[in-house]
């Protein structure tokens, strides 16, 4: 059932760990280290799940999310937001902007795997 994941995360070592965890589960992971052009890349790839870091150089995760939601082609892409701030107002902002799921750093590897699986399953008819 594994498919494609677009991972937008500027921390190289976190990205490497997530890529490893998901790859072992059979997911094909495309990684972007900055926010600029991420929405366009998502529209081109049409991945099963987009993982967006909250704080990114170039363009914030929330801005990318808003871009995705405003384009009919990507409006329904499942998005998992990651943030280093586990504070309720960041979560609320992510939810308002249309994030499907939210994980606060530091997360367990099993959490991210479970979230990606659940989002992909939910999106499939």
């Amino acid at each position, binding site marked *: 059932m594994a498919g494609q994941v677009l991972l937008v995360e500027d921390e190289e070592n976190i990205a490497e*760990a997530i890529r490893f965890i998901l790859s072992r589960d059979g997911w094909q992971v495309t990684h972007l280290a900055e926010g600029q052009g991420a929405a366009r890349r998502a529209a081109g790839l049409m991945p099963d799940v987009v993982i967006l870091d909250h704080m990114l150089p170039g363009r914030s995760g929330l801005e990318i999310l808003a871009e995705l939601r405003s384009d009919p082609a990507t409006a329904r892409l499942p998005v998992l937001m990651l943030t280093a*701030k586990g504070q309720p107002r960041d979560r609320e902002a992510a939810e308002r902007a249309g994030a499907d799921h939210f994980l606060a*750093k*530091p997360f367990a590897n099993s959490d991210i795997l479970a979230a990606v699986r659940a989002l992909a399953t939910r999106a499939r008819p």
Partner: protein
Amino acid sequence: MAITALTGTRLRERRLALGLRQADLAGQAGISPSYLNLIEHGRRKVTPEVLARLAAALGLEAKVLAEGAGQALAEDLRTAAAGWPAAAVELDRLEEFVGRFPGWARVTAGLQARSGLLERAVEALNDRMTHDPHLSAALHELLSALTSVRATAEILAETGDLEAGLQARFHRNLHLDSERLAGGAEALVAYLDGTGGAAREQGLATPQEEVEDWLSGQGWHLAALEGGEAAALEEGIAALASSAARDLARAHVARAAEDARRLPLAAFAAALARTGPDPARLAAEFGCDVIAAMRRIALMPGAGTGFVSCDASGTLVFRKPVAGFALPRFGAACPLWPLYAALGRPMQPVRAQVQVPGPMGARFDVLAFCQPRLADGFAGPELREAAMLILPDPAPAAVGVLGIGSTCRICPRPDCAARREPTILREGM
């Protein structure tokens, strides 16, 4: 609070223990001695208001008089137990516990009180974190490193068949992230301690702080400028961590070079010795503006004078500290600072003697002045610059001394009319 017949007995016992006559206590509580006598013998009811006055005169809480110390303690323990529903505390045996183990009961109640105090301290620090962008950025950095360490360590611990190349790579990542974590934690501790060095190395300092650090390292006086050698400072400026700090430093050097040219060191030092630190007189003598004279006074070699300046929004744009006068790191300063009085009255000198809070609160003479600046001529907006010289060890003031603080959040003055937000320095902090 139940007022019972025993209330009178407790009242009498306490009064006698303090060696007070009925007439003394009655007088202090504003009732007649005969009424007090009736209360003590349980022949008259006492109203809660009178009981409160009697308790205050006896140095007790009213509930201790009404219910006895044991009852008050039991009430505190009941509150403590309410916070631990899962512990299934034997509330039906509470009186027995207080009676048989009064010491343990007091310890438990004391721990409950202390835990409440610590919770409020955590709230205050949490509040501080949300208002402090640099602290927030530092914590973000720590959480990022921690996330990487956790994810990588989990992979290494739980993947039995990890290929050797990947294993080495994840080990290297773990090593780098743990170093980053240690450095970040050290910087954070230094930042919270206010010692600064490590925080600055980690880029946690603001550009303004970087420049102030650099100037402080030179004793606040740039000797090279006295000989017109601004270029000699470029090496030190280039070593500053952020480009914003380098820009600020260059702007400061340009201004200080102009001050050095217009107010030659030897002549200015002689005039300063003759007139004392009076920026208006010195400005008239050297044909410069008053704030330039204030800046030159503060930045003379070895000057023990503090100096702050702000723009029209009240934001501090330059801070030379002086021992005993705390300058805020973020946000606006105490609204009572004469700096702000001057900001509202351009071109009028403001002079005051101020005292900072605390049992040993030091006094300072401060001189403040504000000048409008028309950078874009008549067409442009009027800009303002206000500055304040802070002179330690003043002669006793002839008139009133103004009590000021650093900034409301860390100012303990309880009843300040100018307070704009609560202090974090509450009970025991």
